[in-house]
C-alpha cells in the first residue's frame, strides 16, 4: 500500500506532508508533556522489532499464501497512539530511504495512510473503547480480555486498511494521474484490502494475545477496565464515529463528484446514458454534484502545479511531436555518453592507482 512519488501531484504530496507534519508536531508535544524520555528507548526498540517482524511470513491455513503483521495497530496497543504514530513514521521513513518502499515525496501521504489511521483511528475508535468497555464481562475477566483484544485488533486492522486504501485512491485521483475511473479503482482496492486487513488483524491479535497472557501490563488500557470512563468512552466513540463517517462520506462524495463517471460506473455498472433517465434526473439539475465537480476541478487545477493537463488535440502537447521524440533520442544518447565517460575515467583512476 506504499504510495509512489509518481502517483502524486506535488500539491497533493505537500498537503499530505503538512497533515502528517502537524500530527507529528502534536505527538511530540504531547509526549514531552508526559515527560516520556523513558518511552524513547522502548519506542526505538519496538519500531525496530515491528520493522523486522513485518518481514516474517505467516502461513494462512488452507491457502498457499502468507500474511504479515499490521504495525500501526500493534504499536499503538503497546505504546499508545502518539508514540505509536511517531514509531510508525520512523519505520516508514527507513523503509522509504533504505528499501525504496514508497518515495521521498510520498512519505507524507504514506505516513497518513498507514500510520495515522492505524494509530489514531484504530486506537481511539476501537482499541480504547473496546478495552475499557464491559463487553463480554460474563465470560470472566481473563477470557473477556482475550475476546476484546481479538475483536479490537481484527476490527482495527480492517478499518485502518480500508481507510488507508481509500486514501490511496483519493490521493491518486486528486493528483489526476490515472485514467482509471474512480469507482473502478475503489472497487479494486477496497476488497483486496478487506482480505489483507482480516489476515493482518488475526496475526496482530495473536501476538497481542501472547503478550496479554505473559505480561498484560505492557498493553495499553488493560487496567482501566473498571474505570468510570466506560460511559464517556461510549459517547466519545459515537462522536468520533460520526465525525469519521462524515469525513469519509464527504471525501467520497467530493472525490466521486469530481469524477461523476466513476461514481456512475461503480453504482450502475457503467449504465452509460441510461443513468439520467433511470434516475429521473437531468445532469444539469444534478446541482450539488456539478457544483462540487467544479470545485473539485478548480482544486485539481491548483494542485496540478502548472496545470497544462492538455488534451491531445491542443497545442501544448508539445511532448509528443516528432521533434520532441527526436530530441528525446538525442538526450538518451547524451546519457549513454555520460555513462561511458564515467566508466572510462573510473578505469583510468583504477589504473593510475595500480
Amino acid at each position, binding site marked *: 500500500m506504499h504510495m509512489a512519488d509518481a502517483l502524486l501531484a506535488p500539491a497533493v504530496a505537500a498537503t499530505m506532508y503538512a497533515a502528517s507534519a502537524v500530527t507529528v508536531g502534536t505527538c511530540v508535544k504531547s509526549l514531552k508533556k508526559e515527560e516520556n524520555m523513558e518511552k524513547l528507548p522502548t519506542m526505538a526498540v519496538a519500531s525496530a522489532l515491528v520493522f523486522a517482524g513485518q518481514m516474517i511470513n505467516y502461513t494462512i491455513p488452507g491457502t498457499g499464501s502468507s500474511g504479515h503483521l499490521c504495525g500501526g495497530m500493534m504499536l499503538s496497543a503497546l505504546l499508545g497512539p502518539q508514540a505509536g504514530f511517531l514509531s510508525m513514521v520512523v519505520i516508514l521513513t527507513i523503509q522509504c530511504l533504505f528499501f525504496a518502499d514508497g518515495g521521498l515525496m510520498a512519505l507524507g501521504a504514506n505516513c497518513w495512510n498507514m500510520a495515522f489511521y492505524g494509530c489514531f483511528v484504530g486506537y481511539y475508535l476501537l482499541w480504547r473503547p473496546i478495552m475499557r468497555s464491559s463487553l463480554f464481562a460474563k465470560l470472566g475477566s481473563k477470557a473477556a480480555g482475550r475476546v476484546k483484544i481479538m475483536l479490537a485488533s481484527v476490527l482495527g486492522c480492517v478499518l485502518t486498511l480500508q481507510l488507508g486504501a481509500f486514501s490511496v485512491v483519493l490521493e491518486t485521483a486528486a493528483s489526476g494521474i490515472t485514467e482509471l475511473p474512480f469507482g473502478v479503482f475503489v472497487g479494486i482496492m477496497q476488497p483486496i484490502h478487506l482480505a489483507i486487513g482480516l489476515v493482518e488483524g488475526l496475526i496482530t491479535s495473536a501476538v497481542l494475545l501472547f503478550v496479554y497472557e505473559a505480561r498484560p501490563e505492557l498493553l495499553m488500557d488493560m487496567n482501566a477496565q473498571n474505570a468510570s470512563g466506560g460511559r464517556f468512552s461510549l459517547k466519545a466513540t459515537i462522536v468520533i464515529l460520526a465525525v469519521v463517517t462524515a469525513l469519509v462520506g464527504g471525501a467520497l462524495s467530493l472525490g466521486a463528484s469530481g469524477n461523476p463517471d466513476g461514481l456512475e460506473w461503480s453504482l450502475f455498472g457503467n449504465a452509460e446514458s441510461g443513468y439520467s433517465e433511470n434516475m429521473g434526473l437531468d445532469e444539469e439539475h444534478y446541482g450539488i454534484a456539478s457544483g462540487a465537480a467544479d470545485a473539485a476541478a478548480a482544486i485539481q487545477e491548483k494542485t496540478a502545479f502548472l496545470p497544462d493537463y492538455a488534451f491531445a488535440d491542443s497545442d501544448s502537447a508539445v511532448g509528443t511531436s516528432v521533434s520532441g521524440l*527526436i530530441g528525446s533520442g538525442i538526450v538518451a544518447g547524451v546519457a549513454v555518453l555520460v555513462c561511458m565517460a564515467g566508466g572510462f575515467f573510473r578505469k583510468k583512476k583504477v589504473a593510475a592507482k595500480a
Partner: protein
Amino acid sequence: MDQLSQAQSELREMDALAGMDSPVHRLHPLCKLLVTVGYIVTVVSFSKYDFSGLVVMVLYPVLLFQTAGIPVRLCFYKLRIVLPLVCAVGLANPFLDRIPLLRLGGLTITGGMVSMVTLMLKGCFSLMASFLLIATTSIDSLCAALRKLHVPEMLVTLLLLTYRYIGVMLEQVAVMTQAYKLRAPGQKGIHISAWGSFLGQLLLRSMDRAEELYNSMRLQGFRGDFFYADVPACTGADVGYVLACAAAFVCARAVNLPALLGSLVVR
C-alpha cells in the same frame, strides 16, 4: 526467510555505498536533501503527456551515478517494490485514453500510451533520486540535515535509535526463523499455532532490552539531551551546487529542451 536476509544485505549494501568517497559524497547533506526534493518535485510536476520534456531529467541521475561511482544495478533492483503499484495504475491508461496524439507510419500513438510511459518514467526517476541521496549520505549526516531543517529532535533521535536497532532485530528474527525452519521443514511460513508466540517471545525480550537501554542512558546522566558529532558547515561549492541544480531544473521544466534539440535536427 529470504525477505529477511534480503533486508539485511540491502542495509549493509547501502551502508557500504554511503561509506564510499566521491565529490557527491562530500557535498553537504542538507544541500543534497534539498536538491533531491527539488528534483522529484520537478519530475512529478511534468504533465502526463509531456514525455519528451521529462526525458531530459534523466541526465541528473545519470551524472550523479557516474560522479559518485555507484552501480546503477542496485537501484534497478529496488524498482521492483515501487513499480507494481505504478504499473497497476498506469497500465489501464492505454485502454481508457485512446485519443490519438501522433501517427508514425501505420502506428498510432494514443494519449494513454504516452501517459503510461511518462508515469513509469516518473516512478523510475524519483526512485533513482532518493536512492542516490541515501547511497551517498550516511544516516547520521542525513539526520543532521533534518535537525537543521528543524524536524523535531525527538523524531530524529528516534530515527537514529531505530536504525541502530534494526540490524539487531533483523538478526534476532533471522536466527529465530532459521531455528523454526530447521524444526519445521517444508513449511513456507510460521504455522498458525505459533503466530502469537513467535513474535510475542521476541517482543517480550525486546521490551527487556528497551529497559536495559534506558537504564544505560540514565546511568550516563540522560535528561533528554543527545549530543552528536559536528557537521561541517556549508561551503561555497555546496551552495553553488544547489543553485546550479535549481537553475537546471527550472530550465528543464520551463523549456522543452529535447523538442528544441529535435527541431534543430528536423528542420
